[in-house]
């Protein structure tokens, strides 16, 4: 299923210079926007009746430690009108905060908590930004690329006296 070309034109015209970049790959439409504009864009798409991108399918992030703007927060919107999708991305430097989308969707609550927990992105104005998946005593954010996978050597009778080895 490819993207809606009219919606593409509409978004480009309406938001103009707020859109930093447009990417089309395998029939999927992606826009990159700034962190200060994103909630305005999402809200006006939410309220817009013509294309009705008012369903937040997913909110997630990716981590690029080598880039200057390390985090990418990804919003995937869906329209019940023509069943098309559009994706928005915001790039953030390490430690930068992004306004919360909970003001528009209730589902953003848990999804943002998950991104906070696993990536360490702070959402400004979130009602309850606490860890959700990882244990309370775990430090760091596991889905960051420089958080390495570890393996604990299982203890058997032959090595039970040695301290657990973590590699």
């Amino acid at each position, binding site marked *: *299923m490819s993207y809606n070309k009219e919606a593409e034109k509409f978004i480009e015209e309406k938001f103009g210079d707020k859109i930093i970049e447009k990417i089309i*790959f*395998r029939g*999927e439409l*992606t826009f990159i926007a700034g962190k200060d504009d994103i909630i305005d864009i999402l809200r006006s798409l939410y309220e817009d009746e013509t294309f009705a991108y*008012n*369903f*937040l*399918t*997913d909110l*997630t992030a*990716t*981590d690029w430690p080598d880039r200057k703007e390390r985090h990418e927060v*990804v919003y*995937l919107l869906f329209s*019940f009108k023509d*069943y098309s*999708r559009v*994706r928005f991305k915001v790039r953030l430097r390490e430690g930068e905060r992004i306004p919360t989308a909970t003001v528009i*969707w*209730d*589902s953003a*609550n*848990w*999804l943002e908590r*998950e991104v906070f927990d*696993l990536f360490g992105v702070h959402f400004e104005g979130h009602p309850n930004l606490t*860890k*959700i*998946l*990882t*244990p309370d005593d775990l430090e760091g954010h*596991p*889905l960051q690329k420089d*958080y390495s*996978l570890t393996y604990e050597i299982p203890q058997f009778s032959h090595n039970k006296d040695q301290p657990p080895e973590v590699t």
Partner: protein
Amino acid sequence: MGPQHPATHGVLRVVLELDGERIIKAEPVIGYLHTGIEKTAESKLYHKVVPLTDRMDYLAPMSNNLGYCLAVEKLLDLDIPPKAQWARVCLTELTRINSHLVWVGTHAMDIGAMSMSLYAFREREHILGIYELVSGQRMMSSYFRIGGLMKDLPSNFNREVQKVIDLLPSRIREYEDLLTDNRIWRNRTTGVGILAREDALKSSITGPMLRATGVGYDLRKAIPYSSYDKFDFEIPTRTEGDTFARYEVRMAEMYQSLKIAQQAIDGMPEGPFQANAPGIVSPPKEKVLNEMEALIFHFKIVTEGFHPPEGEVYVGIESPKGEIGYYIVSDGSPKPYRMRVRPPCFINLASLPKLCEGGLVADVITNIGSVDIVLGEVDR
């Protein structure tokens, strides 16, 4: 309440604030089963992620496999031969029945109809038999692979599936006889855990929960994948949005799934079961043993994997629980740079406070059951 509670379907903890029997506030606490599947996937070759996906929603392994395979196939721009597509449709529909059977059994047991779970698990055994027939595994089948299927369907596949299709409708009707007009069942479910349509949309609810509020959204019709557009079926919806409506939707879906599975085996095309994509799809075992080129391809796939183009794709499919989506970011290396699973149970469970608050303590169990969660997928 919980985490070790038999009616939370795994390890879910719900912090309840009560005023007598009334619930003022309910806060689900999750993460007890967090295994870091998304992180693990980043360190594995594309092929080797398939078995990980089984272990999220372990009641619907085939749906999880299908979503992942479709996402990678979209990334690679692969065409899948019709036989594999039909087999995938048939097996994912049986998976839907499998998942719904466990749901109706456990949900009814939570509410007090103990015998339902025994009957439902008895019927589920037939579907697990089909899993074993095709893949050798009863639960973690990993039968769908990138580019097609693990191996060809066995020669008695159609016959065995036909047996299941012939058996199940009368059994499902039996369950309906037990539950639908049962006064206790009605009293426990009607008007309990009502979710309004606007709330459901704002909470990104998908699957039977959304369809019970009157939105006929089903990805099999909305964005047909794997040739679902060639099958004839209906999307059952209800408008009440309560637990009973969700029950009715799931029961009606089972009949539709049987209808699709019947069409799939009747119209099963001939031909290859894997895409013709050397370097991506493993050659058949006989060739690997007899031909030099096949051995080289096999060796390269296992050791090095394949290099998909840089880019990102999202594919969502209709799993029994709702929309399960795979968002894969590739940086051109043989391992996924990022594999995100859009978890239907996680997002549906987030609306549990809405269902519970203002209700009675006894209905918390009903509400958890009717959301239909698998904690393996909620936590991943």
